[in-house]
């Protein structure tokens, strides 16, 4: 009984070992798992293993569709021709419910099917522990096969293995997909970064180029300023200054002035542009006469055109408005820039300024035509761009910051207009710009040339007025201090220089001058604080700020602090004289001084003054007595009193000498005290008995 059973068991055991060996053969598909066709590689590898356990005649694998509602055959064996046959098996099994039965359990579902021959249909789910991956179907003739439990268990093991392989493969593919996506993103980002870096580098290069160009532009005028100034100094410090030396010096100082102005222009341009780039361009619109502005520009640039022998003409197309609403400073700036450019680039011929107005658009149109070198057509777009000159060598040849046109573009746009250029190389260029005028009424239009002429200005000659009065000014920079002193000397006023706010405060309080010119930026105490203190102390005279900072908000701030006005630095002589004229009286009018002078001239004061003078001898006697009796407190108090009173009664020399005596006495310099006392005696005698 036992023997056959044992034999069967032995055979089964041998069979099992063989099959397990098969299962352990290396799996080719693994090496191809990263391959795109890895799913079919897995199927073919497992179909081989399965056939070594159960020799199916045909077999196939089904995978769910994307919506997971239906399964479709995605791999058939031995070839694609069996697809139809397998599909008909599948359809039948789905209809009979066996397919869904197989999905529910992790074991083979075997169906007998009778067509020409008797077939066995084996369904087995492909599933991992957590999800269904697909379905296996195998067909075999029953006569060939006797499927035992062992084979079926092995099939289950193989298909489980297959399911995990497919799942792992799907995950690998997902990972690869993510990796590729990431790589794409990184690549895109890198490209963007490289582009940004390139842009930054080229902008930086342009700035560097501009800066080196700029520093060259700044150095060039400075070199000639310093050079010629040294020449003049040498010539004028020689023992004997010849007439020729003087003539040379005048010529050279003209060069210095011209270069200084040029330098100033460059610095202004750079500052303007930096303000524009920082979005801080200030526009201040009000009503003004455009003809006056145009004529001012004409008279300013005609100096330059005359120097070069160029013909400069302004042509107004009538009718032309007598008043427009815009920013005159900015309009002037645009016109000055374009006109001086035109002159700069023209060697001979003419510069024409054309001004038009159209009623419909309420716009002014300007054309500035030159006969200069022109601009190559491919560079026309570049000339309005910052740091992008038509040719960097241009500025070397013709000077200038190369920023003028950029500024003009910003300004005309800020005023609501446009700017453009047309040019022909070697023939010349025409710059055109427009600005809105605001509403111009018909009666405000100038109709004839003679209307226009009313506004033409004469060439301005700087007239030096002759004034009187006392001016205290502060300026910490010694060169400027000397310059202001010279200007004040030239109008004939007494002037006292101070170097900081504290000194100014002391001097103004002491001297109570007719006018104060106050620098803003100074060490120790700035001009703002000094002015505030002066106002608190009751100084009521005019105080004018000297400042390079004349932005509107700053000027308002000065006025609020107690300043009466301002003078822009560098100081223009005409503006300086105009301001002085406003606050000081003319030299030939003696009776226009302050009201307080009345009291000074009054008989009462004159009597007090006389009494003081008459009492001086007695006072001097008392002082001398106290000194001889070595009554130091009495002596000090008497001298102190005399010091305070002398100037108050109109004898500043008494105050001055008393001050010196007081000082010497404090320092116990008795020899000096005695000498000064005898001087005081002389002064006292002189006051009472002149001559």
């Amino acid at each position, binding site marked *: 009984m036992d023997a056959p059973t044992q034999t069967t068991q032995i055979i089964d055991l041998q069979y099992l070992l063989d099959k397990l060996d098969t299962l352990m053969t290396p799996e080719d598909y693994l090496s191809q798992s990263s391959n795109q066709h890895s799913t079919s590689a897995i199927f073919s590898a497992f179909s081989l293993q399965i056939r070594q356990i159960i020799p199916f005649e045909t077999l196939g694998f089904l995978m769910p569709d994307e919506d997971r509602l239906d399964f479709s055959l995605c791999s058939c064996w031995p070839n694609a021709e069996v697809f139809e046959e397998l599909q008909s098996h599948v359809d039948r099994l789905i209809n009979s419910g066996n397919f869904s039965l197989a999905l529910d359990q992790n074991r083979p579902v075997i169906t007998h099917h009778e067509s020409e021959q008797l077939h066995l249909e084996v369904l087995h789910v492909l599933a991992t522990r957590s999800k269904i991956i697909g379905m296996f179907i195998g067909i075999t003739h029953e006569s060939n096969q006797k499927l035992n439990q062992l084979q079926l268990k092995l099939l289950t093991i193989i298909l489980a293995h297959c399911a995990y392989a497919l799942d792992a493969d799907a995950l690998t593919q997902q990972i690869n997909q993510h990796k590729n996506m990431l790589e794409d993103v990184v690549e895109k980002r890198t490209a963007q970064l490289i582009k940004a870096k390139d842009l930054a580098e080229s902008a930086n290069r342009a700035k560097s180029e501009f800066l080196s160009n700029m520093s060259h532009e700044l150095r060039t005028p400075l070199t000639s300023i310093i050079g010629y100034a040294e020449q003049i100094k040498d010539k004028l410090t020689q023992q004997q200054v010849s007439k020729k030396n003087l003539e040379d010096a005048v010529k050279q100082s003209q060069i210095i002035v011209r270069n200084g102005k040029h330098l100033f222009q460059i610095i202004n341009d750079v500052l303007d542009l930096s303000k524009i780039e920082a979005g801080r361009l200030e526009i201040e619109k009000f009503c003004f006469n455009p003809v006056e502005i145009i004529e001012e520009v004409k008279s300013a640039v005609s100096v330059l055109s005359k120097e070069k022998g160029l013909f400069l003409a302004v042509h107004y197309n009538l009718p032309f408005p007598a008043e427009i609403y815009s920013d005159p400073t900015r309009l002037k700036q645009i016109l000055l820039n374009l006109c001086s450019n035109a002159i700069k680039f023209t060697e001979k011929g003419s510069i024409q300024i054309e001004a038009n107005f159209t009623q419909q658009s309420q716009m002014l149109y300007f054309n500035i035509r030159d006969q200069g070198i022109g601009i190559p057509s491919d560079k026309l777009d570049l000339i309005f761009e910052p740091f992008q000159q038509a040719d960097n060598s241009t500025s070397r040849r013709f000077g200038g910051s190369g920023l003028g046109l950029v500024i003009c573009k910003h300004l005309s746009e800020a005023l609501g207009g446009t700017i453009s250029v047309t040019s022909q190389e070697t023939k010349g260029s025409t710059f055109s710009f427009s600005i809105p005028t605001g509403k111009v009424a018909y009666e405000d239009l100038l109709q004839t040339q003679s209307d226009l002429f009313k506004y033409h200005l004469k060439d301005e000659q700087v007239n030096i007025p002759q004034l009187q009065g006392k001016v205290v000014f502060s300026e910490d920079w010694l060169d400027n201090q000397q310059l202001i002193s010279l200007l004040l000397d030239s109008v004939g006023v007494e002037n006292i220089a101070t170097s900081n*706010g*504290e000194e100014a*405060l*002391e001097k*103004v*309080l*002491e001297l*109570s001058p007719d006018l104060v010119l106050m620098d803003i930026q100074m060490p120790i*105490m700035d001009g703002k604080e000094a002015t505030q*203190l002066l106002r*608190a*102390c*009751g*100084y*009521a005279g005019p105080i004018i700020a000297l400042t390079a900072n004349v932005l509107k908000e700053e000027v308002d701030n000065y006025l609020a602090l107690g300043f009466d006005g301002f003078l822009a630095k560098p100081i223009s002589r005409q503006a300086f004289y105009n301001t002085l004229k406003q606050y000081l009286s003319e030299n030939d009018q003696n009776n226009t001084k*302050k*009201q*307080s*002078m009345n*009291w*000074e001239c*009054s008989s*009462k*004061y004159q009597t*007090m003054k006389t009494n*003081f003078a008459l009492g001086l001898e007695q006072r001097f006697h008392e002082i001398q007595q106290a000194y001889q009796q070595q009554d130091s407190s009495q002596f000090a*108090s008497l001298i*102190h*009193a*005399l*010091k*305070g*009173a*002398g*100037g*108050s*009664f*109109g004898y*500043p020399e008494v*105050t001055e000498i008393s001050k010196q005596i007081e000082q010497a006495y404090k320092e116990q310099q008795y020899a000096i005290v005695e000498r000064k006392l005898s001087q005081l005696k002389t002064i006292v005698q002189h006051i009472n008995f002149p001559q």
Partner: protein
Amino acid sequence: MNPTSKLERTALVVDDSNLLCELLKDSLIELGFDNVLVANDGKQAVSAYKRNTIHLTFLDLEMPKQNGIETLKEIKAINKDAYVVIVSGTGTADSVKKAIVLGAKGFIVKPCSPSKIAEAVTKFNATHTELRFNE
């Protein structure tokens, strides 16, 4: 001396030099003040201030016994709105700042010419329109 009525203007002049007090007094009367009191040092000034209604004070800075700054403090303690103009030999920034911070309404540097006095009085008048000139 009459007690000061609302329409009268009274000034106090403080200086250790009688000469200067005299000048200031005459000037102030000339400029329309009804009464001008005189003190020769800080202590006198404070007691004069306590006893009288004073509209304007000219106060010397350099005085023996009690200097102007101390005196200014005491006057301000009596009447925080006291209108005091400092008179000093020098207008150093230090002393000016001190005086202004303590509430001085003006600062005159000697020699105190009639025009400086007049200027200070003009400023005073501008802020005290309720007091009328007796001219």
